[in-house]
């Protein structure tokens, strides 16, 4: 079992624990598709996220050397950066990308693995994802893995040693919400590592539903970045994740098909 080692959050109520480190926020956010770095930073601050994903790409040779960079606005001293393998379609590219990320971030081990299978749907290639996860875990990476919402695949990825299972709710960037809560429930019920919905959230109610199901957290990018007001939406998502988590912990009332029990006294009625 993971132990909490971060002194800042020891004692914090109900932390998210990933790879032995505790976080107050259960909302993880991406950094793509924003208008500029200032908006990126403002939205992330409003979201309260502590873990933020970044992509690894070739530097633009010949560009203005004084051009600001993402990490000037999101310094690793303030955030847990989660390098991802977005855009990788095979194991080799994913591993290469994350080795570069580890070098870039001074030995940083926590990564998001995603190996895509199709450029139109961005559905994960599960076979390549499993292969890559095996190699990365053996190499010492702490792997948070994006995958389809298949409970058997989730179980295999956990057995390999991934530190978090991150099934899609619907397609990346689609904003279609949670299309198969039943599969997510199966994955959550069996997992001993955190399960986070990654991809498909469109608006705040989607995040609430994910958290009410018992997800440990939600990772999103487009739902915030492509909102008309990304900073306002980031705040809404923060509240949604918190509300959903509290409702999950509180335990919802049983569903009834017929209204059996009024909320007000049945005696002392006037007339």
């Amino acid at each position: 079992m993971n132990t909490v080692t971060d002194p800042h959050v020891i004692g914090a109520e109900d932390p998210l624990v990933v790879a032995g480190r505790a976080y107050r926020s259960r909302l993880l956010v991406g950094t793509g598709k924003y208008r500029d770095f200032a908006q990126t930073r403002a939205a992330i601050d409003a979201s309260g996220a502590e873990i933020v994903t970044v992509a690894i790409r070739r530097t633009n040779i010949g560009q203005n050397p004084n051009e600001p960079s993402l990490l000037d606005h999101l310094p690793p001293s303030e955030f847990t950066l989660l390098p991802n393998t977005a855009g990788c379609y095979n194991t080799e590219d994913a591993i290469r990308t994350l080795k570069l990320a580890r070098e870039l971030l001074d030995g940083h081990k926590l990564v998001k693995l995603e190996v895509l299978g199709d450029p139109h749907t961005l559905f994960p290639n599960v076979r390549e994802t499993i292969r890559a996860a095996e190699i990365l875990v053996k190499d010492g990476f702490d792997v948070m893995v994006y995958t389809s919402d298949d409970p058997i695949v989730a179980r295999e990825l956990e057995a390999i040693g991934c530190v978090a299972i991150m099934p899609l709710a619907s397609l990346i960037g689609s904003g279609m919400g949670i299309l198969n809560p039943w599969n997510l429930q199966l994955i959550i019920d069996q997992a001993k590592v955190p399960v986070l919905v990654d991809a498909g959230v469109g608006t705040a109610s989607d995040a609430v539903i994910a958290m009410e199901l018992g997800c440990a957290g939600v990772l999103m990018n487009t739902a915030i970045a492509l909102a008309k007001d990304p900073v306002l939406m980031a705040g809404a998502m923060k509240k949604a994740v918190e509300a959903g988590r509290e409702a999950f912990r509180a335990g919802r009332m049983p569903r009834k098909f017929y209204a059996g029990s009024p909320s007000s006294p049945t005696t002392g009625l006037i007339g």
Partner: protein
Amino acid sequence: MFAIVLNGSPHRCDSTVTVADLVRELALQGKRVAVERNGEIVPKGRHGQTQVAPGDKIEIVAAVGGG
């Protein structure tokens, strides 16, 4: 002068050049970048002693916005 492939494009190098020289030439010194030479990571601490050779495939990457 000799030719290498830098981030997928042809690039000319002076006769003796290290990875550190190349990073400096590109005005990337002090920036958060990672370098790969012919598929192998060149750790920051070895940039100064790693020679770039004709035909090398060099990748220099940075963190950018992504989901």
